[in-house]
């Protein structure tokens, strides 16, 4: 049994008359949204260093980076590094030969599945088998989130046997709730008792000054 069979079976039962191609299409859209909005797919990417080089092109096969969380290195200060449009710019220090010997820079980032170049957007399944879209463990972790999201998308469609504005609104609320939980999980790094708020600074300069 493939990992996503459980999800497909749930949708087939809830939305009578839906085709597998349409489920795959809605699943792709939902997965893209949940990865970009809730940062559910997080990976640590190794970026090999070159002496005296501060810009590096970073790419992940089958995925694209949607949000960089953190950049770190054992000896190099990279606290002000910037990642934009596939390029990592190290700042404030420039890597020396000694830093290169200490190992790569680690970039922790949120990813989303990407369309391979040359794929036809008109296809129901533009990126090949569903199972390869995201890491295997995410299928079980995200089961409820994806199920709610796919049902919402399908039931909101006009003139379909399974269409229901009332149920679409219900699944939309469920989906948003699950997405918010996943987003918070990403923010606290799967740790409990993490404070995600701060006191206001004691002295805030008035805007009138």
């Amino acid at each position, binding site marked *: 049994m493939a990992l996503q069979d459980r999800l497909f079976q749930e949708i087939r039962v809830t939305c009578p*008359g839906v085709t597998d*191609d*349409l489920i795959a*299409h809605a699943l792709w859209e939902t997965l893209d949204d949940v990865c970009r909005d809730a940062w559910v797919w997080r990976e640590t990417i190794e970026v090999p260093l070159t002496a005296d080089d501060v810009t590096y092109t970073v790419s992940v096969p089958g995925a694209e980076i949607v949000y960089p969380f953190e950049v770190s290195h054992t000896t190099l200060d990279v606290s002000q590094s910037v990642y934009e449009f596939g390029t990592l710019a190290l700042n404030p220090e420039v890597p020396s030969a000694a830093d290169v010997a200490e190992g790569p820079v680690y970039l922790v980032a949120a990813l989303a599945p990407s369309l391979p170049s040359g794929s*036809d957007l*008109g296809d129901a399944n533009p990126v090949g088998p569903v199972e390869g879209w995201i890491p295997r463990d995410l299928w079980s972790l995200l089961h409820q989130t994806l199920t709610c999201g796919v049902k919402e998308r399908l039931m909101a469609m006009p*003139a*379909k*046997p399974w269409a229901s504005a009332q149920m679409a609104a219900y699944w939309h609320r469920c989906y948003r709730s699950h997405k918010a939980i996943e987003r918070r999980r990403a923010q606290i790094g799967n740790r409990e008792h993490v404070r995600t708020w701060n006191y206001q600074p004691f002295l805030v300069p008035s805007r009138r000054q």
Partner: protein
Amino acid sequence: MALDTVGAYVAQARELLQDTAGVQRYAAGSLKDALGFSLMEARRLRPDLFIDGTVQAVENTTPDATAVVIDPQYRMALIYYMVGHMMLRDEEESMQQLARAYKAQFGSQLVSIAV
């Protein structure tokens, strides 16, 4: 009957039209045309069934063995359209009503659960 090919659709439509005798009332080419029209109508009502954006062309010269690519859940709807379309040529009032009923059945089967 799995309704996989053009020939299977034509044969099933003849069953409902009671046109299975040796001398046939409806030409096979006309029934194939009706099948082509049903696919075009299905594309209008349910574009998700043709998610790659193309509608298979079925014409009166299309060979019987040609496969018809559509989800099994909606194959009977195409038969109802074909039957309704063939009945439109009849001039009797009762046949006209029946034709409308078959076409309505086609539409409701595509867009609603209960038919």
